[in-house]
């Protein structure tokens, strides 16, 4: 079943741009990225769009569809009515390069600042051993495909460009949580989480969790546990005292 759909796509670059209207064919079973490709093939040969896998695994095709951050390759056309106009815009939080392509290097800069994985010494036989139950929590965050939809939707930087220096964004807060929970890692990142990566800026309103295409529970399993760990270190007089008199080994 083919029908003609109305699309509005943002076209432009740093000097300016606007939403442009298109009418384009849609076939049964297609996703938004298919339709964008058809536009490219038939009506707008120079439409810039980034994509790779078309399977929701490379994290390249992030955009905003009807105002919601989503992967274009994982958004089925069947979620819209045939009469609906589908609006596709680039990620708002990052500088635009052209059309639907944005410059996401903010994220790479933040990633590079995080203190790297620092395992305890190897065991006598030269191996690193850990139990599955110990590493399970960290593994949830390893599912991240770095699509940066969470970074895009987080109001801390989306609505306040000036916070980008102080705040690393949800993707990197869960990276900190992943390392802090890791059974082999020995670096304490709790002070850095608060002071250098802006954990306190997050007001746990959970938009990052809402948009994550991998279904990672960023807030409940990553950011809130990290906040609690920071409380242990910084704000709770009892745990602070416990650690001073050696009653509370970090395990």
């Amino acid at each position, binding site marked *: 079943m083919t029908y003609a759909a109305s699309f509005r796509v943002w076209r432009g670059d740093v000097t300016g741009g606007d939403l442009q209207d298109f009418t384009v064919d849609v076939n049964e079973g297609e996703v938004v990225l298919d339709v964008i490709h058809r536009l490219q093939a038939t009506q707008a040969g120079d439409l810039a769009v980034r994509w790779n896998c078309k399977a929701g695994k490379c994290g390249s095709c992030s955009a905003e569809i009807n105002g919601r951050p989503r992967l274009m390759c994982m958004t089925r056309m069947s979620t819209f009515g045939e009469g609906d106009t589908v609006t596709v815009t680039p990620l708002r939080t990052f500088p635009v390069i052209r059309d639907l392509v944005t410059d996401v*290097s903010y994220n790479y800069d933040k990633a590079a600042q995080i203190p790297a994985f620092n395992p305890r010494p190897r065991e006598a036989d030269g191996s690193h051993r850990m139990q599955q139950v110990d590493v399970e929590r960290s593994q949830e965050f390893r599912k991240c495909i770095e699509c940066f939809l969470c970074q895009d939707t987080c109001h801390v930087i989306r609505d306040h460009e000036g916070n980008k220096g102080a705040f690393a964004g949800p993707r990197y807060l869960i990276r900190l949580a992943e390392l802090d929970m890791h059974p082999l890692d020995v670096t304490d990142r709790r002070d850095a989480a608060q002071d250098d990566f802006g954990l306190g800026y997050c007001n746990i309103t959970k938009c990052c969790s809402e948009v994550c295409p991998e279904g990672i529970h960023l807030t409940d399993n990553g950011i809130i546990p990290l906040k609690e760990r920071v409380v242990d270190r910084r704000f709770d007089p009892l745990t602070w005292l416990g650690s001073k008199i050696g009653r509370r080994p970090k395990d």
Partner: protein
Amino acid sequence: MTTTAPRGTGAVTPGRGDGGPAPRRAAIRARHLRTDRWWLQPLITVVVLLSFVVYSSFRAFQNAYYFAEPYISPFYSPCITTGCEGDTFPEFFTGPSFISPAIYILVIPLGLRATCYYYRKAYYRSFWLSPPACAVGEPHKRYTGESRPPLLIQNLHRYALYGALLFNVILTYDAILGFRDETGEWGHMGVGTLVLLANAALLWLYSLSCHSCRHIVGGRLNHFSKHPLRYKAWTQVSKLNASHAKFAWLSLFSVAIADAYVFLLATGTITDFRFF
């Protein structure tokens, strides 16, 4: 070989504060492009929370109709002054008569809910509009979140939890007292008993599913394998934690319903149906 740009050449220089050059974002005038009813959720939250605040303030200041043998309203328990109706808790002191006994104990349940991770999400979104919904622009010029006072105080949430757990014990005790009749004879039960029991159960579910509770029972450990019992406890709390928001609302309603039930009994509007 792939070459990549050197670090730090991105649009944002790390460490930059407010101001700075124009962000070079895509020029999109609309504050948001969402087409769904994103405003419904915050609107419902505002209406429900405001109604609760109005009702509970009225009842807390009323200083009357909070006790109907053998039931006491959860707003007034533990009742710790000599001015208390009924005899459910040791009376510690005599306060000025214009201060309702509910006021002294308000700080614990209020403190718990005000600093609760779930309610924070709810009121930051619906009252403070920060953000009103995902990918909908917030109206504030500046934003520092919970990174500095006064909101830094949210970090003391676990102390409110400790107090609330104690209160849960007391409210459970109140529900058990409900197995008496008007004369203090044990072995009876009425609709009020069920109301108080349900309320106590929901309050336990709410506080045990708390994020701080999850952290304290086991979340703070990095080696679950060395602490099998705490790992088990953490697993159970984690299961409850997934429904924390639901318990937050249900227990809010149950407190109000339990209070309203006692109010109706105390004013003589209804009589308690007794099973035995």
